[in-house]
């Protein structure tokens, strides 16, 4: 209900576009042959996610906010990786992009004697619950808001390490609703993985449930893939400095 020049009446709040709620995660990571990493991550948000953190900042101080943000990062960085917020930018300015500058360290992936295998999707490698199958859906699926998430992870490779196998670049479209993209780019000493997921809807109708599930199953499959890095110098030799 709202009051207007014509008197009180019903009104519908305007829908948001996916571009109104954007998250960009940029990581730059130095990695060694055993998978030990150090690096930095910047997470830039606008829209609903930024609003959530800004509202939280009204109830707790910044030290506590960093702690809570660190906790939220535990759910998205791979097992064995620590992520700690160094500082925020734009926290108190609702018109600015909210940026969290984060330090990364730890161990990622799994190694064999000849290879290092890394999760293709750095931010999706944690064990998570699969999208269970439901034959009939009676209610719409509420996504909260439309959103766009862009990720870019650049691995800086040491001498003696090269890409042996990488998942094919892929796109998963759900016409009119969502799109997912995954791409790897190899340059000497750098491997960059980019991932994008756009959901351009708030509610999926019950009859769209199977399409929704299929889309997220395909996304999960793509995210589960691995990057294979070949180690031409044995880790022991590198450790000895040979």
């Amino acid at each position, binding site marked *: 209900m709202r009051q207007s020049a014509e008197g009180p009446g019903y009104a519908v709040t305007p829908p948001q576009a996916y571009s109104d709620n954007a998250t960009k995660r940029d990581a730059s990571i130095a990695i060694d042959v055993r998978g030990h990493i150090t690096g930095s991550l910047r997470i830039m948000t606008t829209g609903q996610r930024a609003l959530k953190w800004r509202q939280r900042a*009204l*109830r*707790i*101080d910044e030290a*506590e906010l960093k*702690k809570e943000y660190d906790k939220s990062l*535990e759910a998205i960085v791979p*097992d*064995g990786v*620590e992520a700690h917020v160094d500082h925020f930018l734009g926290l108190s300015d609702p018109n600015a992009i909210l940026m969290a500058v984060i330090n990364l360290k730890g161990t990622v992936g*799994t190694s*064999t*004697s*000849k*290879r290092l*295998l890394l999760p293709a999707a750095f931010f999706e490698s944690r*064990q*998570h*619950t*699969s999208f*269970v*199958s439901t034959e009939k859906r009676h209610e719409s699926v509420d996504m909260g808001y439309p959103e766009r998430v862009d990720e870019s992870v650049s691995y800086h490779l040491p001498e003696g390490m090269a890409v*042996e*196998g*990488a*998942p094919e670049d892929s796109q998963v479209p759900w016409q009119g609703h969502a799109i997912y993209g995954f791409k790897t780019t190899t340059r000497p000493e750098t491997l960059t993985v980019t991932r994008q997921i756009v959901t351009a809807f708030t509610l999926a109708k019950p009859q769209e449930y199977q399409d929704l599930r299929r889309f997220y*199953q395909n996304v*999960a*499959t793509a995210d*589960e*893939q*691995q*990057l*294979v890095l070949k180690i031409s110098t044995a880790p022991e030799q590198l450790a000895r400095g040979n």
Partner: protein
Amino acid sequence: MSNRATNPRVMISAAIAAALLFSAITPEAFAKNKMEPVPQWALDAAKIPTPKAARDAKAVMLFDEYVITLDEQNHAVERERSAVRILKQQGRQYAQCAVDYDVDEKLNYFRSWTLTSEGKQFQAMQSDFTDRGAYTGAVMQFTERFRVVKPPASDPGSVVVCETEKHLRPYMNEEEWNIQSSIPIVQEALELALPPGGHYAESWRKYHPVKPIETGNNHLRWEIKDMPALDLEDVNGAPPWGALAARMSIKWGDAAVKGADNQWRALGLWQQQLEQHRADPTPEITAKTQQLIAGAPDLYTKLSRITTYIQKNVRYFVVMRGIGGWQAHYAGDIFRNRYGDCKDKTTLLIAMLQAAGIRGYYFHVDSRRGIIDPAAPSLYGNHMITAIELPDGEDDPQLMARVKAVNGKTLLIFDPTDEETPVGLIRAQLQGAWGNIANGADSQVLQMPVLSPEAAGRVRKGSFTLAPDGSLTGDISETFIGDDAMSERMFIKESDSKEIHDALEDRLGKDLTNLKFKGFKFAQTDDLTKPLKLDLHVSDSNYAHTAGALLLVRPRVLGSHVRTMTDIMQGKPRTYAIELGHAAHFRDSFDIAIPAGYVVDETPDPVDVNFDFASYKSSVFVKGNLLHYEREFVIKDVEISAGEASNFRKLQSTIMNDERSTAVLKKP
């Protein structure tokens, strides 16, 4: 005092309950609608500066004082005065004060004021107070309530003061002084005003005993300054908060005896006297018992038949009123009504054991390990279980949960309220914990045993076929024993078939992203003496992944022993013990038939680590066209010291790396 060890229990009609509840609050207990001046003690407390050590805290307790005044019948009135300064936005929650009251515990008054940093003063009015039941749960009927105030203007910088006075339960001779909180405390005190000729006893836990000051004739005051916070918010895997917190127990009347052993004995005698004749078997109980044990070839069978009868036929239902929080109903009533709480179930079990010629005793425990401390005798505890006296020489290996009493008798510990753990075993939370047996002059505190790893665990076997497109199909069989069977049986009991299906699907889906859950079947669910079995049938349309010409397969198809322990994994300094759960032996064995046209190029290295508290080993090898994975994980204890944190970290890192390790297949 705020964290009580005891709770009154009653069964009454709604009308009587309403009348009794009304009588439990005097008109004075209701806050006024006109502001009263802030009392001098509160003005003084608000002037106490925040110590340097507390400046990073969310809030600080500036002052907390209890005064217990006893009359000549040892009936007590307790007054509490407290003052909390809110230091941060997230500290507002500490502004709330609460007091519990009941039919036997009349609340005289409850007042609260706020003194802001700008010098303004507010008093909480009637609308700022709420009353609510002390417990939730469909299996409880009780009269105890909490009165809670949400003080106005409780912002950072403000000091919130509260003042309450109530009559303590007339039949209790003990109070717990919880001297530690999750925020720092600057000044705290307990005063005890004894009647002429009255005496007291005290016991301290996790804090050096403080000498009282005699402030008057038979009037004693204990004071503590600068108590640090016990904040476990960011500590993973810690023992329960109450197991680590400092506390003092003050006793008067008959409970006031000197020395820990004597105090435990006095508590046992009090409990025994309270339950006198409650566990006497009626002719109906005797007849039923004789029917149950007829033809039983040995003691284990007799015990199993009696305990199973109680587990399956006596519904758990709590009625709490007054002394009923401590005193059981009569065995005959429990047997006839077929319901009761933990004391009632123990009472009926003792009666049935007696009818079978076996002695049983009340054994007062807490369901959280570490709460009861042998060095600090008190009535702290929340549960009643049974100690069963075994005949000399009884050595049946199924009767594992044994302890030796000082009188030389061997006792078998059993919890009749636990409907999923068979006689002979006790669940993990009780293992290694202490309890007090009520056995006349032989009453004593006893530690329950930590059972062998072979008493619990799971064996999981899986057989799978991998197709060239990466899809996987297979069958899994799981066998659970001990505590692991108990938790599965509880899950089955509390869920309908759809909930079981969904929960299993959810569990499997954590490892199989594109899971198609084809079916499951549990077997041996009802007979607690047998292992529980589960068969699962699954497929995953995208289990293995290609990377160029390679096919990547995770040999550990499902199941995880990784625990989320962020602070330990990040190497933060550890002060508190680490809870391991329960001693158990887990074995996994998976065979994956690899697709034609592929060979195994690389398998993960074997893993073998061994610590005093746990061991883990795994290996992957190729047998013909099968990729075989097997692992064994043994947890040998229920808890380890903080000093073992680095070994625990090594263990968890090893498990984490093993669980995500990958075998590489390629076309020759």
